[in-house]
């Protein structure tokens, strides 16, 4: 190590008055780093508001988003409809509130699939190396050469669009980056002393993979999961824009897709769901950024 002063080094923790040399719990340390990042906190607040809207909104604003409540294409503010109505005369605010559920569910589910496949492939490839790695990375590369949206379109087309098929299609086409990341982490960590130690005392491979390496590989994977949520939400919107969606489930993407032909008459019906998507993805990526800074071991050790 160089003895050059690292300028961005955080001060040693000064909370404990008696300098107990006990190491702070990692998650607490992470949270402290995270909380120092104003942008990340803003993202967290924003996401909480959106999630709160998804959970409580329908109770606070009990309107069926499918009901025709007023004249079609009424501008925002008409008769108390804050965001106006769409081409059928449905309340856009109700749509945004109910739509947040489907959007968030697809985002979370697709991200989960992305992460699970990605970690599974990456972990096995990075841990076992050899032909396993060769095979899995070739498969990864195979999925990387296909344009994800085209492939997702074909998949959704094949299994008809529902929340489940859309989530799966998005997950199936977007796991490759996570797999590469997971592999790199596993390659790095498997050579570290404590892993070698665990192996030398005869721990089973599955134990080493899931209980020894994975927790240590988690930080970058958590960050990648946060970004996967954002990507999945954008993906769902893109598919909806191409009308590959389920009209029986109110989602922001559906709102944009179905209102798009009417955009010249009622800009609001496309604009508001677009802003909702933007804010959600923004929130998620701010959180991802914050986690990235907070979890980055290089930054933390300084």
């Amino acid at each position, binding site marked *: *190590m*160089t*003895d*050059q*002063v690292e*300028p*961005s*080094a*955080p*001060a*040693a923790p000064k909370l404990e008055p008696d300098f107990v040399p006990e190491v702070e719990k990692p998650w607490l340390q992470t949270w402290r780093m995270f909380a120092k990042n104003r942008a990340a906190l803003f993202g967290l607040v924003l996401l909480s508001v959106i999630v709160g809207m998804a959970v409580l909104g329908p109770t606070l604003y009990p309107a069926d988003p499918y009901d025709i409540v007023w004249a079609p294409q009424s501008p925002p503010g008409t008769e108390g409809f804050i965001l106006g109505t769409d081409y059928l005369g449905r309340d856009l605010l109700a749509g945004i509130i109910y739509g947040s559920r489907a959007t968030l569910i697809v985002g979370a589910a697709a991200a989960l699939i992305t992460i699970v496949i990605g970690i599974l492939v990456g972990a096995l490839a990075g841990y076992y190396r050899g032909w396993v790695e060769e095979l899995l990375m070739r498969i990864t590369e195979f999925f990387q050469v296909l344009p994800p949206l085209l492939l997702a379109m074909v998949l959704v087309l094949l299994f008809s669009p529902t929340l489940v098929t859309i989530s799966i299609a998005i997950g199936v086409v977007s796991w490759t980056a996570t797999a590469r990341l997971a592999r790199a982490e596993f390659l790095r960590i498997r050579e570290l002393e404590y892993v070698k130690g665990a192996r030398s005392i005869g721990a089973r491979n599955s134990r080493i993979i899931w209980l020894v390496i994975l927790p240590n590989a988690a930080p970058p994977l958590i960050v990648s999961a946060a970004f996967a949520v954002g990507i999945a939400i954008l993906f769902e919107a893109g598919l909806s824009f191409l009308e590959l969606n389920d009209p029986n489930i109110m989602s922001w993407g559906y709102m944009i897709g179905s209102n798009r032909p009417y955009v010249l008459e009622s800009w609001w019906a496309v604009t508001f769901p677009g802003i909702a998507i933007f804010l959600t993805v923004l929130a998620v990526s701010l959180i991802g950024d914050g986690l990235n800074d907070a979890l980055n071991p290089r930054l933390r050790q300084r």
Partner: protein
Amino acid sequence: MNTPSPILSVADLAVEFDMRDGVARVIDDLSFDLMPGETLGIVGESGCGKSMTALSIMRLVPMPPGRIAGGEIRLDGENLVAASDVRIREIRGNEISMIFQEPMTSLNPVYTVGDQIAETVRLHEGLSKRDARDRAIEMLRAVAIPAPEARVEEYPHQLSGGMRQRVMIAMALTCRPRVLIADEPTTALDVTVQAQIFDLLRDLKEQTQTAIILITHDMGVIAEMAQRVVVMYAGRKVEDAPVDELLLNPKHPYSQGLIACVPHLQAVPTVERPPLMEIPGVVPSVSELGRGGCPFAPRCAQAMDRCRQQMPPPSTVAPGHQVACWLIDETRAA
């Protein structure tokens, strides 16, 4: 002052860094002189400010968050602290050169070593491409790299660590600087390679009469290479003496500790060797610096109340031997 004037003179140097919770003074009140042709050792533990001193001389302290907060660095009388950026760039690599600790990462991986050596002479001496290349080959030969005509086309990753450090030395000496700063040049290398590098430095010095500042944490290296030594602790100079004087008669408890770490350097090797000594505690973190009192006090076995309250001033105990420690007063008073 009956000695000739120093080639490089550092006076009252202070370097500060902006931290998240305030300003840290990482070098404080540092003064020393480098005579022409002399090898000056700067010694201390990691984090004591040795490298920052070197960077300050090169004006390479990262700004922001760092800054030279005070003092002077004079090269032949010219104050480098106040010099313009253009002037500083003329000096760097030309009049003062530097060799870094990590030969593995100190060379740009995407250019050939020849290019990287030639770049310096082309810049400072305006040589043509061809002449610069010839000079690069000549320098590689000078640092005893075999087959320099071939090596000049190679990339850093194709060379071993020792070779790379030789390239670094070649690069540093190519413009025949008056001062060479070697910052832990061998720390990252194998022991056998270390010896070769030091031999090389010594040979080159004999040929060129370049003054060298050798930064190291290894008293053994100091003993072999340097004529004079500055001991630093926590950004301050604690002792400054000719090497033999220091080895024989270290005054500061920290210097004593450092020497005790290397058994064969002890002035009177006892028959029954004392157990290997170790200085307890660690160097204080940068944010704790500059709080008043002797920074070494928390680790000092002989610390007094005064040590914790007031910073001891440097005092001369012998010709060319300065120490900053209250114990000196005590002994004098006694």
